[in-house]
């Protein structure tokens, strides 16, 4: 049975299903219960934006509110994972990674390798990413490229509620450390989601729209912008864009990307992160190296600019890649091909 639910509800459902299925799943985070030790409602918050609301009533002590000490509790989740639990730690905003990155990239990510394959660290770190919330420079970043760069981590960033549920279930069952990035501006977005449990395998991109003229690769919120752009292109320019939702940034499904570019000959990569050493450059470079012969024109990258996220709505609205910017980039791949 499917019904329309929001991205936020989909996350909640995935957590609930996995906690029910596996007693080793525990949740840790700041106010993921909310109200601990306070005189009023015991689970007053359920996460800063209410994503974990209701889970305490069902799973009680397996949800733990934490002090405001990300190194300590993210590290504790990692330590518990190395000891057989399957913790899901909530980092609230990915922007806070700077106070606890060591535990993620030097500990969780490297245990297995440093210990000669004898460790397993099935931890999930959930965090909100992305701009558009008027939350300014320290609460609006993507930072997905930083985690993707690190060997030993898996990085996931769903584009809608359906993807979010299936990918989070897979993340919790996965035996490696997973950074699970939830775009805060998708939380309210609804789509058809099955009631049952289902897992979406990692490393398999989704062709969100088929097309023969150009390949648009993206992930997270901007997949939706890419789809919008594709509609515009089809309507106005009779250009049929194929839109690939990467789903997981590490591992990444190179095969699907290369296959698509082999058939379209044109590539636009859309990344909400900053441009330098980004996913946009990662994908464009890989395609340039491995499908050079297939490319009819220069691959194009559409990203946020090389600036922090501005606060003012008038500036922030220019910051996130828009459907129009994607349309323009597609235009370049086509114009160039004609010119060549």
């Amino acid at each position, binding site marked *: 049975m499917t019904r329309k639910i929001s991205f936020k509800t989909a996350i909640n459902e995935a957590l609930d299903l996995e906690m029910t299925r596996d007693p080793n799943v525990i949740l840790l985070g700041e*106010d993921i219960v909310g*109200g601990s030790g306070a005189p009023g409602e015991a689970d007053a918050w359920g996460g800063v934006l209410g994503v974990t609301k209701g889970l305490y009533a069902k799973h009680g002590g397996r949800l733990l509110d934490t002090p405001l000490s990300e190194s*300590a509790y993210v590290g504790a989740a990692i330590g518990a994972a190395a000891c057989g639990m399957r913790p899901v730690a909530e980092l609230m905003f990915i922007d806070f990674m700077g106070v606890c990155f060591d535990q993620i990239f030097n500990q969780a990510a490297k245990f297995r390798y440093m210990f000669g394959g004898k460790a397993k660290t099935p931890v999930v770190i959930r965090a909100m990413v992305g701009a558009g919330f*008027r939350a300014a*420079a320290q609460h609006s970043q993507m930072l997905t490229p930083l985690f993707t760069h690190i060997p030993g981590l898996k990085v996931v960033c769903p584009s809608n509620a359906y993807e979010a549920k299936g990918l989070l279930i897979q993340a919790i069952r996965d035996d490696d450390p997973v950074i699970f990035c939830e775009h805060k501006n998708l939380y309210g977005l609804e789509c058809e989601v099955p009631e049952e449990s289902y897992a979406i395998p990692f490393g398999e991109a989704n062709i969100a729209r088929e097309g023969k003229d150009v390949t648009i690769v993206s992930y997270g919120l901007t997949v939706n912008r890419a789809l919008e752009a594709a509609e515009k292109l089809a309507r106005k320019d009779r250009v049929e864009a194929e839109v690939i939702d990467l789903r997981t940034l590490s591992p990444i499904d190179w095969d699907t990307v290369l296959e698509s570019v082999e058939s379209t000959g044109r590539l636009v990569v859309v990344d909400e992160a900053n441009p330098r050493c980004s996913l946009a450059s990662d994908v464009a470079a890989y395609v340039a190296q491995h499908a050079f012969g297939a490319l009819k024109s220069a691959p194009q990258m559409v990203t946020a600019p090389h600036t922090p996220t501005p*606060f*003012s709505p008038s500036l922030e609205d220019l910051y996130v890649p828009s459907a129009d910017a994607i349309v323009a980039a597609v235009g370049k791949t086509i114009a160039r091909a004609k010119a060549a």
Partner: protein
Amino acid sequence: MSSNPFPLSRDELLRAYRTMRTIRDFEERLHFEFAKGDIPGFVHLYAGEEACATGIMMHLTDIDRIASTHRGHGHCIAKGVDVHEMMAEIYGKATGSCRGKGGSMHIADLSKGMMGANGILGAGAPLICGAALASKFRGDHGVGVTFFGDGAANQGTVLESMNLAAVWNLPVLFVVENNGYAEATSVEYATAVDSYVDRASGFGMPGVTVDGTDFFAVYEAAGEIINRAREGGGPALLECSVTRFYGHFEGDAQTYKAKGENEFNRANRDCLKIFRARVCDAGLASERDFALIDVEVAALIDAAVSSAKDAPLPHARELLTDVYVSY
């Protein structure tokens, strides 16, 4: 008129009141405007905690520096940041303190020694150690004050900084604004010690806890600590017990609070009321004096809001400027 039982002159008392009233009005007005949907982003109000910022900042001048928090409006106002510019900043306008690029969580004015509100808990503590170090190298006798909440007091950055400040004997005041909650979580749950003063001892520095709704208690304790630091006596911690009248941020339903908690605090722990009553009782100012200030402050906030609303948004080209000095 009776003799003055306070360590401040009538003028200073009225100045302190004006600061507290400005903070209160600023915040209550934001609460009102936010509810109308006019204000973008996250807004954390300082209402209820005014005596803490004011009692401390009365001892500081522009050479002294503070590092603030996500709940920074009160610190800004007390440190002398322009109220019009602050309001414009919160509205995201080009005329704001940060030209609309920072917003509520990043208001700063380095010329006033205000090193920024901060979206990252505990981040101000290392920064203020640096400010104090600079003062020490310059020999300008400036001090640094870093504010953090009862929750942020558990951040490693804050704890490391206490040790660093003590090791380098820096003129730093660590101020815990203990309002009992970090978001919805109570301080009793999240902090494993009854008094932050005990924690200060663990880093070899003195500490004192005061009733942060009592301006005079804050003023006196802060004065002693700041003077000592100024003369090379090293860092110390000041814990102020305060109350927050509103939610963690605007939009918070506050169901974690006890029934009637806000009403009780407003009735019995309102630092403005307490201040006013004490000063009136001592005969140093009349209700009329205060009422006059209230009117002036209300006009100031009104003007700030309407000029903020009228101000232009930043121009599109501003998106790409101010990243580097040169690049």
